[in-house]
């Protein structure tokens, strides 16, 4: 092809693209006609868009947080924040969500970036699982949803306790899973570290150096953009990439979630939950299928009055850790083997915890 200038090239592309789009658009409109006005498509489209409209602002916040971590902090600075002690680092990961509140959609980009900066996988995963539950906004909405009933205290307290507990156990379990690198997608793999890791004693309560200071100190900071303008530009560029990268998985997950909301009657699911173990499984399944935001799920859980407290808790603890949209979003950070491990661990632990809580509450007559 003869050489064309950029302007010619754009004009050439546009002359092909615009009519092509018009033709494709016409055919798409023509072939989608039978779907228009059908009740199924109405529900599907509304649920799909509403999940995305609600999630995108939070994904965007997460993307900016991730971009800021990427641009402003060196791996050394991030790693210095993590205690060397395995248990301590996992517990810190689980409780970090109180200080850095994110919901389950926003947490994924942040976790990807933290792992890339060298945060150990177990600590990062326990942050991932617990953050949407210990988020103060989520705690408050849980309290509001359940206030004024017999469950007003037990549900919020146990939700946080079980959430943190399960996140910590899953984190510890992952400590035994071999090489982290082959469990991660490229976007979440740790960066090659230019300097060896500091091998001194762990400093659990270490605080991040201010970025300005960091940029001024030696070779570790050399990779980070130095001036304020460069930093802002880099953050914007990274945030855009991050948003698209995670957003596509959110879209795929939401498409599946909206489909199940459209076609699976809840009555059918709920009818399965006759005894305690079955009701816990059903509520876990429901949390997985509905893919609700952790800020809203407590209101929905409260309305399932025919279910035991334990079953509602399973709904509230599992949902923020695992649902259809999250499963897809995990794909942006983890490989399948790791996702399978996390899913199995979370499901088994949740079920076990639900059973124990159910039996205890029944024994003391509060179930």
């Amino acid at each position: 092809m003869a050489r064309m200038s950029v302007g010619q090239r754009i004009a050439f592309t546009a002359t092909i693209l615009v009519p092509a789009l018009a033709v494709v658009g016409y055919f798409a409109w023509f072939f989608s006609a039978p779907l228009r006005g059908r009740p199924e498509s109405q529900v599907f489209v509304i649920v799909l868009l509403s999940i995305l409209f609600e999630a995108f602002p939070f994904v965007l916040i997460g993307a900016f947080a991730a971009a800021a971590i990427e641009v402003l902090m060196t791996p050394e600075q991030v790693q210095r924040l993590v205690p060397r002690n395995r248990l301590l680092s996992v517990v810190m990961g689980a409780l970090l969500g109180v200080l850095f509140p994110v919901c389950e959609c926003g947490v994924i980009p942040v976790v990807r970036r933290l792992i890339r900066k060298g945060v150990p996988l177990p600590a990062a995963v326990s942050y991932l699982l617990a953050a949407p539950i210990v988020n103060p906004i989520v705690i408050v909405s849980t309290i509001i949803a359940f206030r004024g009933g017999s469950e007003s205290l037990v549900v919020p307290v146990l939700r946080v306790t079980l959430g943190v507990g399960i996140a910590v156990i899953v984190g510890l379990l992952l400590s035994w899973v071999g090489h982290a690198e082959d469990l991660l997608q490229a976007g979440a793999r740790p960066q090659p570290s230019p300097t060896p890791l500091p091998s001194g004693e762990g400093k659990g309560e270490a605080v991040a150096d201010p970025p300005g200071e960091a940029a001024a100190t030696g070779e570790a900071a050399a990779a980070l953009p130095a001036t304020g303008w460069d930093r802002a530009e880099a953050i914007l560029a990274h945030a855009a990439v991050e948003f698209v990268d995670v957003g596509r998985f959110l879209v795929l997950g939401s498409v599946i979630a909206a489909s199940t909301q459209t076609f699976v009657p809840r009555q059918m699911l709920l009818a399965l939950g006759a005894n305690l173990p079955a009701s816990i499984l059903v509520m876990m399944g429901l949390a997985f299928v509905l893919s609700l935001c952790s800020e809203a799920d407590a209101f929905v859980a409260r309305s399932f009055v025919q279910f035991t407290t334990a079953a509602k808790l399973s709904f509230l603890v599992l949902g923020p850790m695992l649902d259809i949209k999250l499963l897809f979003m995990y794909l942006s950070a983890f490989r399948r083997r790791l996702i399978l491990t996390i899913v199995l661990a979370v499901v088994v632990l949740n079920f076990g915890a639900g059973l124990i809580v159910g039996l205890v509450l029944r024994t003391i007559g509060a179930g």
Partner: protein
Amino acid sequence: MCALFRPAESPRAPTGAHPEDLWEETTWLERHRGILWRAAALALWGGTLLWFYHADRLILYLRSTYHPLAAGAGVVLLALALVELLNLAFRHRAPDCCPEHDHGDHGEAEHGDGDHAHSQGRLAALILILPLIINALVPSTGLTSYAVGKRATDIDYSALTSQMTADWEAQLAQAKQLSGEYPELTIAQILGFASQDVERARGMKVSCVGFVYREPGAPPERFQVVRFRMWCCAADAQPFHLLVMWPESASLPTDQWVRVRGVIAFTQGQGGPQPYLQADGVEGIKAPRNQYM
């Protein structure tokens, strides 16, 4: 059109060829296609969010508390798209995938597998835009009886409704002032009042707005007036039902929005007295601006 879906030629040289030669051969557009796609997806989403906010269409999907957040996200997404394009036009710098950009120490691991970055950018952008295309082709007007059927459960909402109507004297007084003989209440309020004080509620004149829903096999002289309660977004919306007795019920099409004027009455159900409305009049209305409670 096939050019759109052809795998992108990677600007990274395959082994054997001199990188510089190949670089010369690829065009500006090919080199930057990934970024252009991404900018397009960001701009489309940003534009849609802002437009929906401006046209008051978010109300169909999101609780109004979240509208400013969605609009803010729209502004930020548009800004991100703009920054991407400005970068491309003036700095010739791409953050993710272009060989002329020095990656410093975070080269390979950056945003995906280098070589795939172009096609990935395009695929990711297409996936992101997919819901907008679906919405353009199959526009939606609201949750209907179909959704009620899928979401309805044998749930007793009194726990929620009584919570929402804690100060019901005040709410009732306000409604009376606004709408006279048949104070207009939400279905949740009526259910809440009725669950709190059966004797006070019995015989009370009220009106409410909802759409017509029929349970399979329901007798012709009754229908349910339904409205969804939305907590955050339409994914968590739950239907609240109120049974209406009206001799001319059969004339009402399912999903028709109606305003029901009537008197609260009770039947003896399994779980105690169940409220219903003995209708004095039912009028068809246009769907309200906010279809949820």
